[in-house]
């Protein structure tokens, strides 16, 4: 792509923001513009998830934007964190807009919680009723009690564990290594919800099981807040700020059964076929060994081993060795989720992971690595590579 991220902005992460999602969105947008050195009236494009409650109309009207020349929505939530970047970039390259803001606002802890069944069920006397045609919580899943994304992740986890014949102990250490390593990153990160809470491997092992084989610390943090990301053309970015980070590649890749929740995908121990990586890396002319830092959309810790294998950073079935030996840590061969991830910084539908990638490339991370090229994915469904063109 020929676009750059020139601004990132956010509100604080919390469990109770105390204000509307619209107000959060506006705060994040102004903060991102300030970071970019741009004015409100520079915005001529907006992108968002269809799942976001704050419409483009609400933003245009609230800010009194003179005009909006492009607005686009991508389906689902975080599934399209990099898809929204691809969409904004495509709009800019096509000349439909020159300055596009991608925003996400949600009171996901104090408001409607993704981890609760109430989101997808209504009550009729003693019975609970599903009206959903598609997962999660759809008419074919809900009657068996499969209701929330975190339970689906437990199914992928068990499938992986069974497919590779991992013992309970080894599997626990593999995911524990993700949770503990990311918590250490978060302990250095002033934005992280878990900044002041330590987590040891013993804490992890002794933690409450939510949905076997996943424990409480395998899960992300339902979070209140908002984030925004500002994109312009690479050419314009060059005249603006040395902080600009280029979008080297952005892609979407779905296949039958993969969306919304992979229940009907051919494999459940792997969530993206090799072609997903070939498309992403091919567009950038790069290969996995060129990546310095990886951001993996960790709605649960299980997403980390799956992404590392699916994108060829390691071989199939090698995740346990890689993670248990700390290769995802600060001194490892591929630091992963250096902000603490969705597990320990906050669940921000992927925008916080993109922002951390930007910080790494600017040299502004709380856990700064040597970073020239950063990878980001959500299960392969949308992915990107950031760096300097």
């Amino acid at each position, binding site marked *: 792509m020929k676009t750059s991220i020139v601004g990132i902005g956010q509100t604080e992460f919390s469990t109770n923001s105390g204000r509307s999602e619209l107000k959060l969105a506006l705060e994040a947008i102004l903060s991102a513009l300030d970071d970019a050195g741009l004015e409100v009236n520079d915005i001529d494009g907006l992108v968002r998830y269809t799942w976001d409650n704050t419409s483009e109309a609400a933003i245009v009207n609230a800010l009194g934007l003179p005009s909006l020349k492009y607005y686009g929505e991508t389906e689902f939530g975080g599934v399209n964190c990099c898809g929204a970047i691809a969409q904004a970039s495509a709009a800019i390259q096509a000349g439909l807009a020159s300055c596009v803001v991608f925003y996400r606002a949600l009171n996901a802890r104090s408001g409607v919680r993704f981890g609760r069944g109430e989101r997808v069920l209504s009550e009729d006397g003693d*019975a609970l009723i599903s*009206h959903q045609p598609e997962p999660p919580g759809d008419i074919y899943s809900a009657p*068996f*009690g499969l209701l929330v994304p975190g*339970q689906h992740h*437990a199914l*992928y986890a068990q*499938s992986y564990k069974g497919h590779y014949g991992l013992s309970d102990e080894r599997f626990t250490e593999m995911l524990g290594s993700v949770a503990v390593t990311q918590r250490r990153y978060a302990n250095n990160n002033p934005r992280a919800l878990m900044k002041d809470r330590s987590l040891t491997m013993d804490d992890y092992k002794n933690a409450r099981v939510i949905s076997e084989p996943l424990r409480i610390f395998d899960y992300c943090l339902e979070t209140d807040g908002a984030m925004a990301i500002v994109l312009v053309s690479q050419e314009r970015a060059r005249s603006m700020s040395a902080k600009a980070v280029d979008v080297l590649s952005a892609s979407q890749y779905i296949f039958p059964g993969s969306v919304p929740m992979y*229940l009907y995908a051919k494999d459940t121990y792997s969530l993206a076929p090799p072609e997903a990586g070939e498309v992403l890396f091919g567009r950038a002319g790069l290969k996995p060994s060129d990546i310095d830092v990886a951001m993996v959309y960790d709605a649960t810790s299980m997403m980390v081993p799956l992404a590392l294998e699916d994108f060829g950073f390691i071989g199939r079935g090698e995740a346990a060795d890689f993670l248990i030996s700390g290769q995802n840590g600060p001194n490892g061969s591929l630091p992963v989720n250096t902000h603490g991830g969705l597990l320990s910084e906050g669940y921000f539908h992927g925008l916080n992971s993109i922002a951390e990638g930007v910080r790494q490339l600017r040299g502004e991370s709380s856990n700064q690595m040597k970073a020239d090229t950063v990878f980001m994915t959500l299960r392969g469904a949308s992915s990107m590579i950031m760096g300097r063109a």
Partner: protein
Amino acid sequence: MNIKPAKQFLEQPYWQHLAKGKLFLNSCNDCGSSHHPPSPICPKCRSFNTGWKEASGKATLNSFTVVRHAVHPHLEQDVPYIVTLVDLEEGVRLVSGIPAGMEVDLKVGMALECKVIQKDEDFALPYFVPVDADKA
């Protein structure tokens, strides 16, 4: 556990067959393949000429989870319960489960068979249980 599809769904053939105690799969009358969830078109040959075929009931266990945390107040009495993904002989995947109270030792890849269990007069669910579970 008392979770049901809304009434308008229960009028569809998939659920109507189950309510009569049989698991039928949405299948193509042209190429013979089965698919799930039901769809107006065959994803293999793209024919709209689809119908319903009784499943053999034979399946293998793709994955499972023991749900220990109740995500709805109504489920507090139901945990722990087991949710499964099962791969049917006909080449389709179903979300299923193990009936409450059944003792099982599950392993990914193990053989399962269908057991349709009536929940109320107009609603039944296709559970899949280990092949030897009834003999044990």
